[in-house]
């Protein structure tokens, strides 16, 4: 009875797993075959790398990769630099208005910049940043998520450590730098990883705010290239799709345990 139940559980779990991984498996298979073989599910068709060559030559993927990397670098550096002091102030300093302002910060967890595209477009336009990499990153640079996450982490630093540093005459900035930041390293890694995958995957806002090859990130480059109405083979489209997900996907497959642990750390509140 229990053996049969275990078999059903395993079967169900695997069925779900296959459905969840099927798109990726199919994409890999299709990208390695000719268009006719891929849509005809011809199992014995010869393998080919031709699709990758055609996709690579068909759209500026290298430029897209560069743009995505720059946006991610801006986001990482600026968010770390701005959220760290803010999180420290919210965690360990007391000043008038602190709790009210913190509540205001948390509003962004509800109202994300994605929802405010119409007005943010006006703002970015007034700043003259339409079709620029900074324009892609700017609305996300003040991050409630980052402040919240780091604040949680800073609050777990033992008060005695902070007190000892204070007695040595260290001001808030140096205490933050010498005591808090080193102890919060795992949180920075988790936060950084979530940030990288967010900006790697972000699509709607970059689509709206970019207008030329020199600024389009990978996702938008892919979308411009891989519209089926352009008469492309499915195999070429899947090859392009795989190319644009490959760096993050390969990193995930190699470091899957660390990846998931860090996502968990970022999500557990």
């Amino acid at each position: 009875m229990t053996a049969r139940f275990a078999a059903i559980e395993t079967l169900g779990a695997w069925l779900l797993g296959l459905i969840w991984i099927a798109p990726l498996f199919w994409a890999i298979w299709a990208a390695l075959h000719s268009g006719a073989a891929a849509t005809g599910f011809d199992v014995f068709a010869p393998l080919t790398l031709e699709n990758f060559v055609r996709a690579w030559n068909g759209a500026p993927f290298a430029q897209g990769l560069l743009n995505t990397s720059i946006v991610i670098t801006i986001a990482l550096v600026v968010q770390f630099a701005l959220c760290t002091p803010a999180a420290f102030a919210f965690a360990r300093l007391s000043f008038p208005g602190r709790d009210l302002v913190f509540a205001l910060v948390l509003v962004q967890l509800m109202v994300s910049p994605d929802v405010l595209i119409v007005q943010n477009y006006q703002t970015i336009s007034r700043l003259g940043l339409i079709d620029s990499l900074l324009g892609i990153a700017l609305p996300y640079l003040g991050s409630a998520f980052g402040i919240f996450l780091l604040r949680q982490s800073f609050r777990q630093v033992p008060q005695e450590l902070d007190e000892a540093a204070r007695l040595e005459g260290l001001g808030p900035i140096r205490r933050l730098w010498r005591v808090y930041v080193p102890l919060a390293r795992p949180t920075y890694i988790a936060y950084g990883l979530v940030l990288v995958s967010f900006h790697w995957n972000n699509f709607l806002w970059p689509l709206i705010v970019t207008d030329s090859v020199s600024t389009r990130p990978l996702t938008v480059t892919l979308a411009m290239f891989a519209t089926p109405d352009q008469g492309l083979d499915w195999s070429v489209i899947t090859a392009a799709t795989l190319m644009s997900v490959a760096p993050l996907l390969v990193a995930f497959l190699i470091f899957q345990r660390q990846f998931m642990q860090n996502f968990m750390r970022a999500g557990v509140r």
Partner: protein
Amino acid sequence: MIRGERKEAIAGWMLILPALLLLVAFTHYPTVAVLIRSLFGQGLHGKAPPFLGLGNYRAMVADPVFWQALRNNALYAAAVIPLSMALAIIMALAVDAATGARIAGRVFLRVAYFTPTVLPMIAIANIWLFFFTPGYGLIDRLLSPFGLGNWNWLGSTATALPAMIAVAIWREASFYMIFYLAALQAIPPTLREAAMLEGSSRLNFFRRVLWPLLTPTSLFVFVNVVIDSFRLIDQIVVMTHGGPDNATTILLYYIYEVGFQYWDAGYASALTSVLLAGLAIVALVQFGLLSRRVHYR
């Protein structure tokens, strides 16, 4: 002492100010500005937009596409929220070392379940686009032995929205599984041992022990999936453009269309304020749920 306090207050404000400025500029300011902007018209040819009062809102009430977008969004949310939460829990139970002990190949399954999270929605959409292709797409091929198939999934008003829902669930379940997994791993093993000694069935153990312990996680996931059900539109932009016949237009997609294809910022702002009102209701519900939970403790 007073001087110390004042110094700390100044330091506190200086430290939060840079981040706060950016947050205000791209969250609080646009939230307010959008409400004001919604009272003005389109402003063609570089002229200042004319003041319309509640004109945009009157147009909205008379706009059948707006009502359809609301209805679609409600259906989208009503399907995506419960199904992705249920699947997220099932997946987490299957790959957790303790609850899924009897399932073979857990490491592979864990990767399989989680993979959609690291894939961009637009990449996912491209692949699903092929799956839904009429005639030779994967789904029709699987259905053809049963005499079905050759169905235009994305081109028919009956199945286009369910197809978008399927893609959304596929992604959301994958992402939120990880939160349930984290919660399951935090549950002390002694609880399970005690339950097993008492001879409690696995179903009972889930219902009486795991489910209550997962409540905070469920609450967190619930709120986030609700928010996502307002804003997950990447696959709609790529796969259906809101069609056919607006069958897959949900509110944010309609905002995108009005704002960036018809370039009517006034009307798009009025639509955004409806979306913001929806999010405000979610915030209030969350607040209510959280304060209720405190009473339980």
